[in-house]
């Protein structure tokens, strides 16, 4: 009996050794990717898990490095890349944020994958512009958000007696007046500089139109900034301030969304990431809340992309991981699974998006018309210019300022 036991033990050890050897061998061959991102909230981490699963299914090993706060995450990525200890992939906004890294020769390109999968054919132009620099693909886009949706609570609209969705700014102000008269908070707004900026861009794109939007943000044209049209945009923006409540300053965007969910407020202007908040509260698009992408049949659609960049590495294993990652995250199945969790829309227009929610489908349909697509502010401005403009706007939003002075200050902020 003892002998039999010894025998079994021997076999067990042998099996264990074999297993260990096999797993070491597979670890050596499976491409390991350390992926750095800032998706840490409930809905976001569920979304990033779909990417990790897809990457594992393709035979890779996913090491997750999540850092709360997009600025912090990018700062850590920057310093690790500059310090020579880069992750395999790092998340940035599809914008000018990583342009300096490219100029300094610190990023690998993924041209082979992009050409194999024909990225140029399905990527929207503004995203393509951000990831393809000097003919090389330096980032793999992963999602498209639209930052200036208008969300409204159906129950609040009912209470205030608003029958139809507002179709222009006149109707919007009429609806806001009705909400105010009904004792509700008309505009649920989080008074933080970046949220003020979103409201401003919603007005700029919808009242000013695509032409003025591009002349101000892309061309930084002083004449456009001094124009009476732009003055009108600033006045409408400021007029919206009279519809926020006293608790607005400093409020987080998701707390503002909660005001809509509980029916205490009528309207919020915010990106489509708020859908995750509605979903957590078990509310549905169309039934509990409505979404308006813009005013008019040709309203612009602002494209805010997220993309992974691939820091320079000479390790052949890291190179394989980067190539595999770029292919997996842009694949149709990964895109659908990710978008449904994240609230974004897929980066490619060539896939069946009928499984996504009503608002996302609306977005996908608008994206088909390329003339309606506009870049996000970050795709045209450096972080420094953008921040300087945000300072002027948030100051104007919160205080009594002369509009002409605001126009001058914006021109100065965008000058250098």
């Amino acid at each position, binding site marked *: 009996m003892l002998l039999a036991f010894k025998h079994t033990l021997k076999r067990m050890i042998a099996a264990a050794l074999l297993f260990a050897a096999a797993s070491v061998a597979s670890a050596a061959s499976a491409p390991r990717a350390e992926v750095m991102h800032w998706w840490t909230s409930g809905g976001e981490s569920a979304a990033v898990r779909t990417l990790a699963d897809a990457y594992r299914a393709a035979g890779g090993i996913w090491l997750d490095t999540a850092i709360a706060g997009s600025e912090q995450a990018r700062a850590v990525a*920057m310093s690790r890349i500059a310090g020579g200890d880069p992750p395999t992939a790092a998340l940035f906004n599809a914008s000018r944020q990583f342009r300096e890294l490219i100029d300094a020769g610190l990023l690998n390109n993924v041209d082979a994958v992009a050409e194999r999968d024909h990225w140029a054919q399905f990527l929207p132009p503004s995203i393509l512009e951000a990831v393809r620099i000097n003919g090389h693909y330096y980032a793999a886009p992963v999602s498209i958000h639209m930052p200036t949706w208008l969300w409204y609570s159906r129950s609040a609209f009912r209470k205030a007696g608003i029958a139809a969705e507002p179709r222009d700014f006149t109707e919007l102000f009429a609806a806001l007046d009705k909400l105010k008269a009904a004792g509700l908070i008309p505009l649920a707004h989080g008074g933080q500089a970046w949220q003020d900026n979103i409201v401003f861009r919603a007005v700029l794109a919808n009242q000013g139109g695509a032409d003025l939007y591009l002349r101000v943000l892309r061309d930084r044209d002083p004449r456009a900034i001094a124009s009476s049209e732009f003055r009108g945009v600033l006045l409408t923006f400021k007029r919206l301030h009279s519809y926020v409540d006293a*608790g607005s300053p400093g409020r987080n965007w998701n707390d503002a969304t909660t005001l809509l969910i509980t029916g205490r407020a009528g309207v919020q202007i915010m990106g489509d990431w708020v859908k995750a908040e509605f979903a957590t509260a078990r509310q549905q698009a169309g039934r509990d809340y409505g979404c308006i992408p813009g005013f008019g049949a040709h309203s612009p659609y602002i494209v805010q992309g997220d993309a992974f960049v691939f820091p320079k590495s000479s390790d052949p294993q890291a190179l394989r991981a980067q190539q595999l990652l770029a292919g997996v995250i842009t694949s149709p199945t990964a895109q659908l699974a990710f978008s449904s969790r994240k609230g974004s829309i897929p980066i490619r227009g060539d896939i069946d998006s009928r499984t996504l929610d009503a608002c996302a489908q609306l977005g996908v349909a608008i994206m088909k018309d390329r003339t309606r697509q506009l870049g996000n502010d970050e795709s045209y401005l450096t972080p420094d210019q953008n*921040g300087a403009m945000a300072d002027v706007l948030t100051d104007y939003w919160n205080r009594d300022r002369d509009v002409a002075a605001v126009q001058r200050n914006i021109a100065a902020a965008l000058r250098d």
Partner: protein
Amino acid sequence: MIKRTLNPAHFALLPMAFAAVAVYLGSMLWTLRISMSSSRSLPLHDFVGLAQYQRLFTNERWLHSLHNLAIYTPLFIVACLCVGFLLALLVDRQASGGGVLRAVFLYPYALSFIATGLIWQWLLNPELGIQQAAHEWGFGGFRFDWLVDPERVIYTLVIATVWQCAGLVMAILLAGLRGIDADILRAARLDGVPAWRIQVSIVVPMLAYSFATATLLLLTAAVKLYDAVIAMTQGGPGTASEVPAKFIMDHLFGRANIALASAGATVMVLTAVALLAPLFYARHRARRANR
């Protein structure tokens, strides 16, 4: 007479000396160098002279940050010293229970302001906190909305940070109080000196060193004021409660302009040195006179 020779104690201190020179002084010099370059998100080593400083002092937000700091610093230091001194007297008087009180007053200092600042934000929010509570208790006309008032928001930072730092001042002054010879106080009392006069004319002057130490610590805390702003206002409403440290951090990371941030940091170091140098000099003179 002190013999100046190297002994083992000096060798033991060498690593510390190295850290002080290489790390602190080194990074200060590096910051100064970067502030004279045109660096954006990555450090560059070109030379643009004082262009960044020129840009800094035409930047409205930076000037407003300095203005805020100029309002905040004296209010914060004076309030902290007064409250801390009263707390120290209170704790000193309690024969029993003094230890408990001391712990209670020191707690705010031990907690991270990122957490307690959020609670202050809730308390001061007109629709969640004190004002709302007063309305619910029937005081409909009560107004306390400084947090969302661009003209007054800086005072809410004073209130919250005094709450945090007064305990530290208390601990320092209490140590000083305990060091005062009880016989002196007894003699004064025997002479019929009134109690308030004993405090003002005897105790406070004898605590001069403790007050100087506390002021030094408070001054450095004021100059690097950052976490309270992040937790309570994020610089808002608008840019009403912006402070220099937040300007520097924003430009260092989010705005990817490390040259401008370094220029700001250099200005802050110079300001701190300019403020602290007279204090150190006075202490040095006092010590010499005592010898």
